[in-house]
């Protein structure tokens, strides 16, 4: 059949792109800026958009947390109504996980992975844009519930079922109106966006590395994002499946979680945490990734135990798929179940401990420069250690029976998500901001940010361990004065003032340094990975010439031709 496959590309004329001329495209006009953002498929712009919208949701969810803390400042406080309080902790939790943690980590991956592996863009640029816009829409959709959820029924506004939305709270009789539907559909959409971006990251890393960059020569950052993306494609679908079942329950009167018809409320918990626990590692492994880039550069030593770091990350991911029911010890499982999940949870501390030792091993004997990224990373090491220790404590089943759903748990996971994840995000911002914008973040403002935030963080969350021990349950909107919880709640709330002040310094610094920051140059930190080989900010095509690497530290080789790494690897 001659119609098929007759034209060859070889004898085609090289295609000349016509100059882009769209209405309103004059540089600098508002339409031009919006068009630029909406039409872009550039991984760097999308990365920054991910991070920017993540920070926006961070501010909104942070304000909710601040109001929650103010409500808990006095016993019997009437600042927030109970139902408003329920909406606030639900929206705070959901937003911080799905609209702050996930997009910011995808932002880092989007911006850095292609440059670090020496390529020009992600494997599927349009899919990348799709992932971002779906995420953004899911976030706006969730917050729109404040307006839209009363619907025709005039019952409920924003979701108020908690971020893990246990059944039967989500059943029609207990959650009238549309608030739970907004939550469900928003999370479902968010999952679609996350999965498409994760697939994109995996394909980019496996198929687009520059010449010479074998898997063993990739920066650890890239390795860890392989693991994160893999966890996303394995762990997100169970959540989506559970959301589909919940939607069927709510709209078609299916019986999945309807205990009166033989359904099971516990099954929801299993499905949620099969997603939920790997999710913790989806959030924290990017933190490890950032620390693994920054600590060596500021210790002036290559990372200690590269292969072990990779192996530890992979085994964390593997074990994390088998620990989910430690969230459910109080549900009443068999002793075999309890024992299995307690042991698997404790075992996961081993590879995690290996990582901490490796970072310390990297710093040991190094010529440490206490620049801001390093400061945040050192704080991360300490705080993550505390978070890990309370984690192992909670893995002990009888201990968990006492403290499950208390403020001790709240303290534990805020040490993970703020003390570890947010601190590495901050470290990453200070480290890569010069690359993205060509200017350094201001050091003085940065120190204010670091110290205020660190003091505030510990003052806020450390006392919550104690109020947890004293029996204060999480998610209560107020408490009696005679419980002995008052002082700990008040200290906790006072800490928030410092955190807010710290964040204000940070946000001001982001804006101030964009205009007035010191010129950064291409390689302000004297670093070793490929992103520092191009200009700051990088051109749209990243590299004039696709680089070729021979070792894990290509820039070291370039700067020290007499003593290159590839001689020793």
């Amino acid at each position, binding site marked *: 059949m001659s119609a098929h496959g007759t034209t060859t590309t070889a004898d085609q004329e090289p295609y000349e792109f016509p100059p882009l001329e769209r209405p309103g495209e004059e540089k600098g006009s508002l339409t031009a800026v919006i068009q630029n953002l909406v039409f872009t498929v550039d991984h760097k712009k999308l990365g920054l958009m991910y991070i920017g919208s993540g920070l926006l949701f961070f501010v909104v969810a942070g304000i909710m947390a601040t109001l929650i803390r103010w409500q808990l400042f006095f016993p019997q406080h009437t600042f927030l109504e109970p139902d408003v309080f329920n909406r606030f902790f639900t929206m705070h939790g959901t937003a911080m996980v799905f609209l702050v943690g996930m997009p910011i980590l995808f932002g880092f991956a989007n911006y850095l992975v292609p440059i670090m592996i020496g390529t020009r863009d992600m494997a*599927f640029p349009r899919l990348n844009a799709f992932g971002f816009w779906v995420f953004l829409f899911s976030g706006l959709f969730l917050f729109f519930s404040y307006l839209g959820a009363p619907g025709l029924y005039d019952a409920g506004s924003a979701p108020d079922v908690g971020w893990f939305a246990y059944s039967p709270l989500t059943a029609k009789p207990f959650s009238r109106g549309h608030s739970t539907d907004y939550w469900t559909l928003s999370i479902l959409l968010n999952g679609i966006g996350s999965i498409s971006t994760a*697939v994109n990251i995996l*394909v980019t890393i496996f*198929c687009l*590395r520059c*010449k010479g960059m074998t898997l063993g020569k990739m920066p650890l950052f890239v390795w860890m994002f392989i693991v994160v993306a893999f966890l996303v494609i394995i762990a997100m679908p169970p959540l989506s499946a559970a959301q589909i079942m919940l939607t069927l329950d709510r709209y078609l009167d299916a019986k999945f979680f309807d205990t009166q018809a*033989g359904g099971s409320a516990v*099954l929801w918990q299993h499905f949620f945490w099969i997603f939920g626990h790997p999710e913790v590692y989806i959030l924290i492994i990017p933190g490890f990734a950032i620390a693994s880039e920054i600590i060596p550069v500021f210790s002036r030593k290559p990372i200690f135990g590269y292969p072990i770091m990779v192996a530890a990350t992979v085994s964390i991911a593997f074990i994390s798929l088998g620990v989910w029911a430690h969230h459910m010890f109080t549900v009443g499982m068999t002793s075999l179940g309890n024992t299995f999940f307690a042991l698997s949870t404790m075992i996961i501390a081993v590879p995690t401990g290996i990582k901490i030792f490796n970072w310390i091993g990297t710093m040991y004997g190094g010529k440490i420069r206490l620049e801001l990224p390093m400061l945040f990373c050192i704080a991360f090491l300490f705080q993550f250690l505390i978070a890990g220790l309370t984690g192992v404590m909670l893995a002990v089943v009888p201990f968990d029976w006492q403290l499950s759903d208390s403020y001790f748990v709240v303290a534990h996971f805020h040490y993970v998500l703020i003390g570890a994840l947010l601190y590495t995000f901050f470290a990453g911002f200070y480290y890569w901001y010069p690359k993205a914008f060509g200017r350094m973040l201001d050091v003085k403002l940065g120190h204010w940010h670091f110290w205020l935030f660190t003091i505030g963080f510990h003052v806020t969350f450390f006392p919550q361990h104690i109020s947890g021990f004293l029996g204060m349950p999480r998610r209560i909107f107020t408490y009696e004065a005679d419980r002995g919880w008052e002082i700990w709640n008040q200290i906790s709330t006072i800490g928030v003032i410092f955190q807010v002040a710290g964040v204000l310094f940070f946000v001001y610094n982001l804006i101030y340094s964009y205009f007035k920051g010191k010129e950064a140059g291409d390689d302000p930190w004297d670093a070793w990975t490929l992103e520092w080989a191009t200009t700051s900010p990088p051109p749209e095509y990243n590299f004039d010439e696709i680089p070729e690497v021979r070792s894990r530290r290509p820039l070291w080789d370039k700067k020290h031709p007499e003593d290159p790494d*590839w001689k020793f690897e």
Partner: protein
Amino acid sequence: MSSAELTSAPAEWKLPSQRKVGMICLITTESALFSIFVVAYLFYLGKNLNGPYPHEVLHFPWWGSAALFGSSATVMFAEKAMHLRKWGHFFFWWAFTMALGAYFIYFTAAEWVHLIYHEDLTVQTNVFGSTFYALVGLHASHVIIGLVLLGIVFIAGLRGKIHPDHFEHVEMVSWYWHFVDAIWVVVLLVVYIIGVQTWS
């Protein structure tokens, strides 16, 4: 090893195809999705509080399964014909695949009509109904997506758009189709064999 050997850049730098890795990722994530519905189905076996029960209403879907499994073979023949540039054969086998897929959808639809109107089994009836329609429906919707993909290739082919550069695209559609088939093996086993054997 001499340093000369080390300094020479790797002679060949080959990385896997983006489409293949992408499709493998998609199949992995879809498998994770299906596995939860399968687990839900198995978990709720024997937990019905009222009828109808699986063994009363389900009949082994011989014809539908035969059509779907057969379509995995025909799509393979089509692919082979494509690589040999035998376009007549390609269109024949590709259309045959689509017909078999469409027949499978028709078969499932007929089964559902029977279950809904004659056996009074809907998604609301009991946990069997909920899990059955969710799992089989999820699979059927994937077959429909597969049919759309097959259709796109067919139309592109008719318009003479299948260039040797696109062979891999076509191959990916057939990978997806094989995946949908493989899922049906699991569904058959879980719903029509294990599920029917479990009384209640």
